[in-house]
């Protein structure tokens, strides 16, 4: 005997002690699916028979059941459940999680139960006890359906052993349908526009060949239309629309979910009493001309419609009025109500309409939700949800979303068929998009605690709670407005420690690293002697508002690697940005990249601009102390040697120290030049991270270098094009040339170079490779590892350094940085972008050797 149960349900086993529930449960369900009251009595009291622990046991059981149902897992309650009040709790639980409660009754004769109990001396329920349970069960049997068990199976002893349980997918589960789809918003009888839209989408719409009223629609290869309901009422050809949609659904070329107008029509067609309003008069008038069979067909069609569909492996949900994540793929009266009408706050607006709760603003689900119901001026994504009802019947447009392309295709209404009672959503006075308005305030729940962020480059990046805690403070107290903060650069690892005499770092190790990872070509870029700066700049105030949602009058920002404003002086920052913008204007950048904003990764020089304090102390201080001391020491040693003392080795050591500290002083002095105005500042952009519609992580570094060099040429005294070399790693001469270039750079006092794989984000043998490796010059390293680090005894010890943590951080921060940019360019919500930037800041609070 086959028994069907919904794949997601709360199965309540009902039967007295000894009826065989546990045996039955183990035969038909996974052990983890079965929550047995006995087991939970044991959990809370060490005794499975302890009736006194029943209350605690059931509380715990319900808690676990709730967690499972929230995760969408079928759950079985193995308890006697012979009393209505114990069942009621489970029906309520099922409803809370929008799953179907299923009752499976094991209707076993009293005698059998008693006998079985007598065979279990360890937990024999008393004779009276069992009798009592059996009579309670029989008394409640007839009321089970009324209690809320729509799925009810009473199993007699003869079938219990022969039952085959079949789990059935829910009607709304069409995850196997992967599209592509064309999802069409509220039509309201606008048949001409519907035909025009379908044609524009590439569907061939023809009258039926057999001459009967109706349509023969050929979709473009593999595509399917999805209608979001509200086909009827208000418009000029409601039967025509119904016919077209029904024909397509029957032909399997379309899916359709019901709208609130269909449900009302269904009640009317079924003879119910409804208030003929909101355009229903048109429907009734037009249907009057149709034969009764058509009425029956329409009623049957509407009745069969499923509240919503989950499509494309769970990535897409369609429903007339949208659907919250907790309701997707589930079935309950409340799910259906939400899908048809949305959620209201209980208040009414000035037009007398119920105020709708803006569920989309709160939406955090992974599935894209496409819906209609509420006419809007323009279809706009908000938190991965999209309303495509653009008010065709009110003289707006009929709009379709092409999925997965996410393109909007519209046709204008031929005319206004119905005057809207309240105007279609006017654009916000601030001029901000729907997403920007929804984004205005970030939510702590989106950043705090332990977090796991999915990124394209590294499957998951985990942030520890102590790091997000630290980041919250840094972000709140020091960082710039999150709307500007779309990116934070990753930390950069040095090359593996060199074994060449006199060197701690050398480009050879950087080349070796990339060669080992299977990278054929690298780009070597001169490492600038400044501070990391990210410049986010818009072409004008209009672009700022549109793209960043910032309306304060700022049109750009320059910030540090920890998200702090680089210039504390507003006027100075404005003047700085004006220079950058002038260069972008003059070089034709905006036109070339087809953008009106840009995000640039740069180095801002001199270093002393930001690091003045650091330069004075410890750098200059140590320089002053060491030079004064060693000058004296060398003199005193000279005096002693002159009078014949044998101090050869000591003198040599200290003379060497004196020369090392002199070189140290020269090294830090290169980072200071006096800045009296912006004329003394230089900016070297080296990554063009993103422009409208594109995070340029798919371009190679030569593209970045050359594109930016063109901009730099427009302001040669302000912008610095980064010198670079391409090195083919299999070509020994090229590699030697790369090393030579580094030697030249560092001999001139340069900081060194940064070696990057030719592409921006490159996969190697073990996933994405380091985005960049720095090889710092030996003189520069004096200000990192101390003036005397090159003394062989010191160098040997300093070579013992671990790069593992640094490398791992660099990788994770890179993945997060790129992810944030990609989300931003895809116009995802602020919280999704902020999550990534916040993540980089959190990782930066991880302790790591600061000298790396």
């Amino acid at each position, binding site marked *: 005997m086959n028994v069907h149960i919904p794949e997601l349900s709360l199965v309540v086993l009902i039967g007295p002690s000894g009826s065989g529930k546990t045996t039955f449960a183990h035969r038909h369900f996974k052990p983890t699916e079965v929550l047995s009251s006995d087991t939970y009595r044991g959990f809370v009291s060490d005794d499975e028979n302890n009736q006194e622990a029943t209350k605690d046991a059931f509380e715990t059981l319900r808690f676990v059941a709730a967690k499972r149902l929230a995760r969408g897992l079928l759950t079985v309650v193995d308890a006697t459940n012979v009393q209505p009040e114990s069942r009621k709790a489970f029906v309520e639980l099922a409803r809370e999680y929008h799953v179907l409660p299923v009752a499976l009754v094991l209707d076993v004769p009293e005698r059998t139960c008693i006998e079985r109990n007598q065979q279990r001396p360890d937990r024999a329920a008393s004779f009276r006890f069992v009798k009592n349970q059996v009579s309670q069960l029989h008394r409640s049997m007839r009321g089970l359906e009324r209690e809320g068990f729509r799925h009810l199976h009473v199993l007699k002893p003869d079938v219990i052993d022969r039952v085959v349980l079949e789990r059935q997918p829910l009607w709304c589960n069409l995850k196997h349908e992967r599209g592509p789809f064309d999802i069409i918003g509220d039509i309201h009888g606008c048949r001409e526009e519907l035909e025009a839209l379908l044609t524009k989408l590439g569907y061939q719409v023809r009258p039926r060949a057999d001459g009967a009223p109706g349509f023969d629609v050929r979709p473009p290869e593999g595509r399917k239309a999805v209608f979001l309901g509200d086909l009827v009422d208000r418009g000029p050809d409601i039967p025509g629309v119904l016919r077209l949609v029904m024909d397509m659904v029957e032909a399997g070329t379309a899916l359709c979910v019901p709208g609130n107008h269909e449900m009302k029509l269904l009640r009317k067609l079924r003879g119910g009493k409804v208030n003929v309003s909101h355009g229903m008069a048109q429907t009734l008038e037009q249907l009057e001309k149709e034969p009764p069979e058509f009425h029956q067909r329409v009623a049957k069609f509407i009745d069969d419609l499923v509240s919503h569909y989950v499509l494309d492996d769970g990535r897409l949900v369609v429903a007339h009025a949208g659907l919250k994540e907790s309701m997707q793929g589930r079935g309950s009266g409340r799910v259906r109500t939400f899908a048809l009408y949305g959620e209201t706050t209980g208040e009414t607006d000035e037009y007398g309409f119920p105020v709708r709760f803006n569920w989309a603003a709160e939406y955090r689900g992974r599935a894209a939700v496409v819906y209609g119901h509420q006419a809007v001026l323009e279809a706009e994504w908000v938190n991965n949800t999209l309303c495509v009802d653009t008010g065709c019947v009110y003289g707006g447009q009929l709009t379709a979303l092409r999925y997965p392309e996410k393109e909007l295709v519209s046709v204008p209404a031929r005319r206004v068929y119905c005057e809207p009672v309240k105007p279609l959503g006017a654009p916000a006075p601030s001029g901000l998009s729907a997403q920007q308005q929804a984004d205005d305030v970030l*939510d702590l729940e989106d950043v*705090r605690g332990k977090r796991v962020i999915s990124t394209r480059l590294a499957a998951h990046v985990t942030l520890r709670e102590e790091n997000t*805690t630290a980041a919250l403070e840094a972000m709140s107290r020091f960082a710039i407005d999150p709307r500007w903060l779309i990116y934070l650069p990753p930390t950069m690892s040095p090359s593996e420690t060199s074994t060449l005499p006199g060197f701690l770092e050398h480009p050879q190790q950087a080349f070796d690293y990339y060669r080992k990872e299977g990278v054929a070509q690298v780009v070597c870029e001169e490492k600038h002697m400044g501070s990391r700066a990210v410049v986010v700049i818009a072409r004008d105030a209009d672009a700022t508002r549109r793209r960043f949602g910032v309306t304060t009058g700022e049109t750009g920002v320059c910030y540090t690697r920890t998200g702090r404003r680089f210039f504390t002086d507003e006027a100075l920052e404005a003047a700085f940005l004006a220079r950058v913008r002038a260069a972008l204007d003059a070089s034709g950048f905006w036109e070339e990249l087809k953008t009106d904003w840009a995000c640039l990764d740069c180095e801002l020089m001199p270093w002393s601009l930001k690091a003045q304090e650091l330069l004075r102390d*410890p750098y200059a201080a140590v320089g002053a102390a060491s030079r004064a001391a060693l000058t004296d*020491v060398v003199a005193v040693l000279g005096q002693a040697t002159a009078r014949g003392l044998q101090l050869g080795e000591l003198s040599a050591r200290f003379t060497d120290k004196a020369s090392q500290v002199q070189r140290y002083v020269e090294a830090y002095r290169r980072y200071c030049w006096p800045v009296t105005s912006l004329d003394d500042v230089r900016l070297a952009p080296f990554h063009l991270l993103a422009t409208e519609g594109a995070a340029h992580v798919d371009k190679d570094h030569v593209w970045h270098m050359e594109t930016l060099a063109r901009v730099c040429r427009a302001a040669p005294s302000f912008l610095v094009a980064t010198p670079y070399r391409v090195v083919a790693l299999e070509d020994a001469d090229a590699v030697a040339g790369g090393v030579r270039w580094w030697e030249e750079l560092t001999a001139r006092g340069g900081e060194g170079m940064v070696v990057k794989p030719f592409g921006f984000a490159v996969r190697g043998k073990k996933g994405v490779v380091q985005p960049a490796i720095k090889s710092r010059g030996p003189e520069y390293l004096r200000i990192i590892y101390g003036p005397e680090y090159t003394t062989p005894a010191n160098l040997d010890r300093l070579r013992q350094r671990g790069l593992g943590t640094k490398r791992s951080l660099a990788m994770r921060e890179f993945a997060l940085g790129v992810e944030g940019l990609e989300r931003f360019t895809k116009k995802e919500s602020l919280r999704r972008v902020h999550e990534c930037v916040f993540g980089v800041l959190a990782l930066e609070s991880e302790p790591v050797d600061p000298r790396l």
Partner: protein
Amino acid sequence: MLLTLSTTHTPATDLGYLLHKNPERPQSFELSFGLAHVFYPEATASRTTAALLLEVDPVALVRGRPSSGGPGGPLEQYVNDRPYVASSFMSVALSRVFGTALSGRSKDRPELAGQPIPLSARLSVLPCRGGEAFLRRLFEPLGYTVTATRHALDETVPAWGDSRYFTVTLEGRVRLGDLLSHLYVLIPVLDDDKHYWVGDEEVEKLVRHGEGWLAAHPEREQIARRYLRHRHSLAREALERLAGDEAPEPEERQEARNAEEAVLESRLSLNEQRLQTVMSVLQEHGAARVVDLGCGEGKLVRALLKDRRFTEIVGMDVSHRTLEIAQDRLGIERMSDLQRQRVKLLHGSLLYRDQRLTGFDAATVIEVLEHLDMPRLEAFERVLFEHTRPGLIVLTTPNSEYNVRFTSLPAGTFRHRDHRFEWTRAEFEAWAARMCERFGYSARFLPVGENDPEVGAPTQMAVFTR
């Protein structure tokens, strides 16, 4: 790193006997932080100079340390002045290399050791916190002629000015043991740092090496405090032991204490008045469930706890460290269950909306606003007035007009380094009016602290109600 000791006592080469180091034989000693070398750049009967040269291992300073979390401070850095300056390393070397001389004894010239002779000591680089004046106040009372040359931070960048390093020469007729004791104690005092943890045994060392001179030294307070790394209880103990029990507390010290108290009191009273005004506003409105946004170390939370009418008290702050201090100060762990149920501390931010903060009768935002960057005020406003949205909001911020009354505050500066702005009464009231208009509140304003007829009260308060 370099100390030279010279004498013109005849025969000057006797310095070798006093130091127990042969002028003709350079010697090296291994110490925990590196090597100490002793040699004589000159050794004639008329003038002899001994050099104590320290070769501090800069890598071991960072690497050899058992735990990097200890009280190491700047020693964690490779770029560090420690190898080049006279510091507590020099004191350690003096006691290890010249231990006998330091204790005032000499095997071969015992009477010379007890006799003042013309001596000079030259420290190549001595860090002096407190500058030349302090340097002189330390050595001149001990009878030295002090010559000090200050070093520029970098002669190529004159704008940076001077460093804290001096080349110092001390000259005087003094016993060698005393000179060495003075150096032993006063080098780390001038440097104001120690390379090791200061514990009780440091008191012993100070008492031993300060014997006979420190008790009468006019800077003894400062010397003891700095020598013992500002651990006040240790400093007091050392001074008491040096001075004996009956010594009266010096008068100037008493005065200084009173002044400190006055400053403290005036600060306390403004703070106290602020808390009292907040409390009375909350009580007046019958608020029982209160969230203190930006609770800091929990002063208001503590005050609220004392009044049983406040049944639920939540303190929220962005600094996790501060919350730990608050947790500790409030003694939440030690509270009775009944008390503990009333109070909760949350880590959060005023720039993120937070479900945990909704549903309270009142929110207090005491001296917090001015710590937010102006461009982020918008987010704060929406979090507070739109999302948290309590029936009552009590908000205080400094009144910048009053700053002219703080004589010690330079014009145009804020009261606290972390303040991002400070508002006049007109600015604050205009802002509050905008909030009322936008979010449907009404506001009244209260002065907190002495209400100056011209510039108003030091603190301004707005009470928002819905």
